[in-house]
């Protein structure tokens, strides 16, 4: 195809403009986190801080409250994701390969939960969880996040398993493997990349969730990072240096995932778009 020079320049301009819009907020957040309080409020703003300081990070790590929120987030997210995986893998495999009466309808129900706004669950969750005496516990968050992760993971994995080559399964049948053996020894190992991507999308749901956490948790025993960040922003005086340092630490795992799993992310996002 011919590509006139002017056209190429315009294309690059569009991409660069979008790149700045996308990246600058991240860069500015990072720059803010390596400034002293004085540098933060200098006019004109310093684009590149001089000298660079990691004092905000040291302060945040030393204080320890961030570590508690981070631990809560990690704990809730990991436990929820493990439970969701244990339930979602067999369910997605069943929905994709073992049809029974109503299985299509049940799958549609599971997927449609993705469209239900979580706010409708917040009031019954709040009342149920208080009745169970689990308000302000990590267990409460795990209960609330499990269905959100499940619906995402089952939806994605069903698509991936449906494309799993029939021949491999038939070969496993000939080897005399039963369904569980086939799933554990053939299907899961071979689908590992797709399963990882589905897991990542599930993981992010819990890692990023804010609204349900704000109704079900009260103190640092169970509160997660989004609550911590939100409460630092809505207080009277905002310490932007420390806040951005917290934000960077919270974002870091997600940024690394995004960069390393790029191909998979596109695959996961478009699983619905381009699957037959």
């Amino acid at each position: 195809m011919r590509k006139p020079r002017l056209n190429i320049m315009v294309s690059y301009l569009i991409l660069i403009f979008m790149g700045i819009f996308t990246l600058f907020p991240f860069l500015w957040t990072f720059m803010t986190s390596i400034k002293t309080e004085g540098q933060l409020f200098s006019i004109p703003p310093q684009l590149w801080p001089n000298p660079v300081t990691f004092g905000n990070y040291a302060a945040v790590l030393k204080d320890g409250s961030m570590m508690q929120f981070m631990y809560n987030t990690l704990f809730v997210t990991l436990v929820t994701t493990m439970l969701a995986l244990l339930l979602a893998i067999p369910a997605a495999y069943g929905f994709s390969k073992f049809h029974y009466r109503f299985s299509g309808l049940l799958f549609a129900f599971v997927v449609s939960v993705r469209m239900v706004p979580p706010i409708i669950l917040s009031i019954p969750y709040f009342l149920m969880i208080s009745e169970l005496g689990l308000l302000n516990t990590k267990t409460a968050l795990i209960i609330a996040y499990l269905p959100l992760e499940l619906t995402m993971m089952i939806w994605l994995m069903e698509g991936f398993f449906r494309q799993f080559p029939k021949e491999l399964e038939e070969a496993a049948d000939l080897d005399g493997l039963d369904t569980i053996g086939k799933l554990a020894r053939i299907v899961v190992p071979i689908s590992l990349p797709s399963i990882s991507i589905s897991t990542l999308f599930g993981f992010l749901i819990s890692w990023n969730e804010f609204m349900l956490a704000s109704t079900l948790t009260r103190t640092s025993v169970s509160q997660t990072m989004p609550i911590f960040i939100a409460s630092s922003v809505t207080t009277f005086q905002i310490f932007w240096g420390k806040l951005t340092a917290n934000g960077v630490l919270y974002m870091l795992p997600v940024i690394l995932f995004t960069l390393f799993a790029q191909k998979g992310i596109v695959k996961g996002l478009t699983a619905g778009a381009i699957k037959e």
Partner: protein
Amino acid sequence: MLQREAGAKKYAKRQSKQQIGIALTLPAIVVMLATVVYPLIWALKISFLSSNSILTGKNEFVGFSNYLNVLASDEFSNAMVNTLAFVVVTVVMELLIGLLISVTLNRRLRGNKIFAMLFSLPLMMAPIVAGFIWRWLFADQYGIINYLLSFLGIENHLWFATPFWAKSSVLIANLWQTTPFVILVLYAALSNIPDEINEAASIDGAGGFGLFRRITLPLLKPAILLVLVIRIADAFRIYDLVYILTGGGPGNATNVLNTFIYRKSFSDFQFGQGSAASIIITLIIMVVSYFSFRLMRPGRGNAE
């Protein structure tokens, strides 16, 4: 005789296949029933009870009065108008920007993979992160955006003080976070269009915008509809970003359905009205999603 035996075997195999299917999916279904369906039924029940009686445990039935109160309140209709306006404006803008960027990426210029990777970054972030980052960017006195605006002669612009600019700031921060989804899905769909189709079309004399409108756009239709369904449903649920960026203010200017329901339920403890409002918006989302899915079906058949 032999045939019959084979038939019986086949039948038994099919039946056991169904049983396996039930066994594999049952645990997840039970969990979903307990954590979604049961609470949903409860939400429905609560929406017909008086709020005071829920807190005392007396559960007094009040019919549709929660619904009527919600529908009659100015606060709700304001939140409804704001949400609908937000959904329409943000989805249209995301789609237009997403089309422009994905088509540009699909020219496969050098470095386009890196651009695609960078563009995807905001998508994976928590909405709370998007909120605090943009709040700092939009800050009155020390915000970098106001500093840059000062070169254009705009001094001390107050982003969160007037309804129009508060709405714009929510819109911009949301575009930053969600346009990448549109870009990535459309880009993936575009790269699935075989080169031969474009080549054949340009031999036929179609070029530039004509090619895009007559060939590319129809082929993109299923992807565009998928993006629409997901983005409309998600845009209706906006909460975190508004909470942290404007808190619904100034006044009620950026109050959306979710902030309205949250305030009704967890600040005013009007669980009855909160539930009624959340049932109303769930029904709206369901109806909108249903019609978008209906739209999607014929397009799908054509493209594949």
